Each structure stands twice: as structure tokens, then as C-alpha cells.
């Protein structure tokens, strides 16, 4: 079957869906660790969770190289077609990264963490995980949170949380992480203080 026939549609209504998706992501970034719901279910390839697909379709375009952890051709073709985004050959070259396996994923410092004078030129990582919960887990604090929030992310190695602490310590440089579980997301901008 050739690619053109295998491609599935993108967002139902790009204008109204992408504003909903963006507001959910902005809300998640503004309230680190707090789990939010992304209201869009594009018929994306199975390797893309619905929220990850919706975020990519809403925020990526020709200006944002995307790095795929496993280089999944179905995902790459889907997003190249709908977003026109180039695929980054190395993590360092990516503006967005899609991570699908938390056990073998590279640490945040492997990605572009920006420049002290241009910390905005840094990567945003979409990390697909097996579950998210605010009932227990690591303790989060910092801007966006009036009181600490607990976040449990299934399958995140302890070493990764330490790397995220180092990511926080390198402020203003650093990457920003969005954990994705199905239609739910929780964000961890670089300002968030992680206590294990």
C-alpha cells in the first residue's frame, strides 16, 4: 500500500481544534504537573497517543524540526504530510521531540537547551507514558503552583527525575517536557522544582 493511501486525516477542524489543544497545553505549562485533558482525537497512527498527535498537529510546521525516538515511518510520514515539519536527524537539532519509550529515552541534556541569551531556542519534549496520576509520586513546586503538586509518571526511571532536576538547575536554559498519556497531559517546564 503506498503512503498516500495509508495516510489518515488530521484534525477535524484545524482552526477550532488547535485553539482548544493549545489552551490545554498552555494551561498545563502554567500549572506544572496538573493533569489536563486534550479535547481532540485525530485518527493518527497507533504509535501516536491522541494528545501527542493533537499537539503535533496544532503546534508543528515547517519551522519546527521534529525528532522521533524510534524514527517510526508511519508517524514521520503522517506528521510530515499534515504539518510539513522536517524530521531532525539528531536530538540536538529538534525543536520538538516525540519520545515513545521511557526506559531507553535520552536525558534532557541531549536536546537543545537553548542559549543563556536565547533560552527560548530550546526543545519541547513530548514523552508518551503508560499512566499519569496526581495522587502520589514526585513533589513539584515553583511558578504556576500555589501549593505543591504530586505527579506519578509510570515508567520514568529515577535517574530521569535527577536529570530533570539538573535541567531545572540550568535555568534559564533547559528543555520543557510534556508527559502524554492517552488524551491527558501534564507539563514540566524548566522552572518546576522536582523533589524525589
Amino acid at each position, binding site marked *: 500500500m503506498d503512503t498516500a493511501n495509508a495516510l489518515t486525516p488530521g484534525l477535524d477542524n*484545524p482552526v477550532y481544534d488547535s485553539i482548544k489543544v493549545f489552551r490545554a497545553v498552555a494551561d498545563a505549562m502554567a500549572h506544572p504537573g496538573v493533569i489536563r485533558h486534550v479535547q481532540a482525537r485525530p485518527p493518527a497512527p497507533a504509535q501516536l497517543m491522541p494528545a501527542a498527535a493533537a499537539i503535533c498537529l496544532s503546534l508543528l510546521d515547517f519551522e519546527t524540526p521534529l525528532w522521533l525516538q524510534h524514527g517510526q515511518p508511519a508517524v514521520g510520514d503522517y506528521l510530515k504530510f499534515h504539518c510539513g515539519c522536517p524530521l531532525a536527524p539528531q536530538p540536538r537539532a529538534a525543536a520538538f521531540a516525540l519520545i515513545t519509550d521511557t526506559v531507553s529515552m535520552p536525558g534532557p541534556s541531549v536536546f537543545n537547551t537553548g542559549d543563556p*541569551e536565547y533560552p527560548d531556542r530550546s526543545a519541547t519534549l513530548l514523552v508518551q507514558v503508560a499512566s499519569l496520576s496526581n495522587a502520589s509520586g514526585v513533589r513539584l513546586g515553583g511558578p504556576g503552583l500555589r501549593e505543591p503538586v504530586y505527579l506519578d509518571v509510570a515508567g520514568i526511571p529515577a535517574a530521569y527525575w535527577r536529570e530533570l532536576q539538573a535541567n531545572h538547575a540550568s535555568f534559564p536554559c533547559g528543555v520543557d517536557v510534556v508527559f502524554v498519556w492517552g488524551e491527558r497531559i501534564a507539563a514540566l517546564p524548566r522552572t518546576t522544582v522536582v523533589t524525589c
Partner: protein
Amino acid sequence: MNENSRAGGYNFAYLDEHTKRMIRRAILKAIAIPGYQVPFGSREMPLPYGWGTGGIQVTAAVIGPADVLKVIDQGSDDTTNAVNIRRFFVRTTGVRVTGRASDATIIQTRHRIPETPLREGQIIVYQVPIPEMLRWLEPREAETRKMHALSEYGAMHVKLYEDIARYGHIATTYDYPVIVNEHYLMRPSPIPKFDNPKLHMNPALQLFGAGREKRIYAVPPYTAVRSLDFEDHPFEIQRWQHACELCGAADSFLDEVIIDNEGARMFVCSDSDYCTQRRDAHRRAVA
């Protein structure tokens, strides 16, 4: 949303989708780096620079059909800039508009923060003329970037000290410098320093847009915002001998209005929504 009230021929909220995506990505980085000015590809808007083109672009990128918009200019819903911008968004989005700060989901403002405390989930968008606090002290962009990267703000303290040496107190009354999250020096846009304490730990998401200067910055909810000062000259807000002569409020920012040819004047709330609601409440209590 009322589809019928929307002008045809334009995309929702005027901007094209690529521009919105670019602005949205800039906003996400701005939220992640509180107080840092993110450069963005500011577009030509159907309003001249200085009329809030930055704020309009930010609002256009964040507004959705379910939002309720309030637009104020110096605290008032009924001044030229506010009326124009509100009409622009009614025509290009069809969203509901309101004068009440508590009913709005998005508030675009020129130079005031409403007296009514904002709540979680609201977004306030500031129109910013000059985003760089250090610009008049150091004209070179390369230098100010380095100063921000190193959080090196001695020059700003010297400027405030010069005020004290000259006038005996810090004479800066608006656009008063603040430090966000203990790192970035930020220009709060020309709000009176009376409003500075409202920036601190505000439950709403605060977004700042500068169209001509092509910068977007943000203060996430519950973020520390400290006004610069000295131990022996602590930061103070303006105080008045008067209360508002319309609603009697003693805790709001007052405008001095000249009311006749003899130079008689009265003090009234700058926030017209706050004043109206207080007067309505008083009338209801009397009746």
C-alpha cells in the same frame, strides 16, 4: 459564539493559522521562562503601532469561540482604544464581550490591572510599548541580552538610586521595574506602580505582547514578582487623601478629573467596572 456577527473573508481571530502557531509556540516558551522576552514574528495589524498590536496578536492567538472578552484602556471599557479593540474581536471572532472583570475569561488591558481580583483560569493580556526595561540605560540589544542572561541588574538599581539622590524618594510611578521568579528584570508595561503588587502570585495567567518591538513575555500564575527597591527605601504604592467621589472606594487607583472651567476637580476610580459595581451594590442596599 455568534457565527452571524462575524465578518466574512477573514480567518477566526483575523490571523492566519501559521501566524497563530508561531505566536502560540512563543507563548509556551514565555510561560516556561517567566519574564524572559521571547522574540516573535510580529505581523502588520489593521491598527497602527502603539495601539496595542502586540496585545491584539497575543489575544488573537489565545482566544477561542467559547471565550468571553473584556478590553480596558487605563481601567475604562469605554475609551477609544478599548472600544476599537473590542469591536475588532467581535467582528473577527464573534465571541461574547463583557465589562465585568469577573465574567471575562480573557482581559486585554492597556496600562491597568482590574481592581477586582483575578481568578485561576483567566488570562490577562497586556499591551506593551517598550518591553526592554534596560533599553534607556543600555541601547545595545546584545548587551541587554547578556545582562538578562546573567541577571545583572546593577544599572537599574543605580537609576532608582539617582531618583533618591535627586528627589529624596524613588520617583518612578509607572512602568516600575520588577524581578520575576528571582531572575528576569521585567517591564510590567506602563501600569501604575499601584498595580505592581497585583502582579505577585496572581492566580491568572499574565501575557505581555509588544508588536512593534516583536516580543512576547509571560508571568505564569502564582509566580513571585518583586518590585525593585532598597532596604531603606522600600517599595511603596501611591496613596490618596481622597476616596472615589462616585463610589466612595478608598482602596482603588484614582484619576483626577477636571470638571469645569474654574479648575474644580474630582477624584474617581480609574477602573470603571469596579466603580459601577460598587455603585450598583450601594443602590441595591439602599433600595
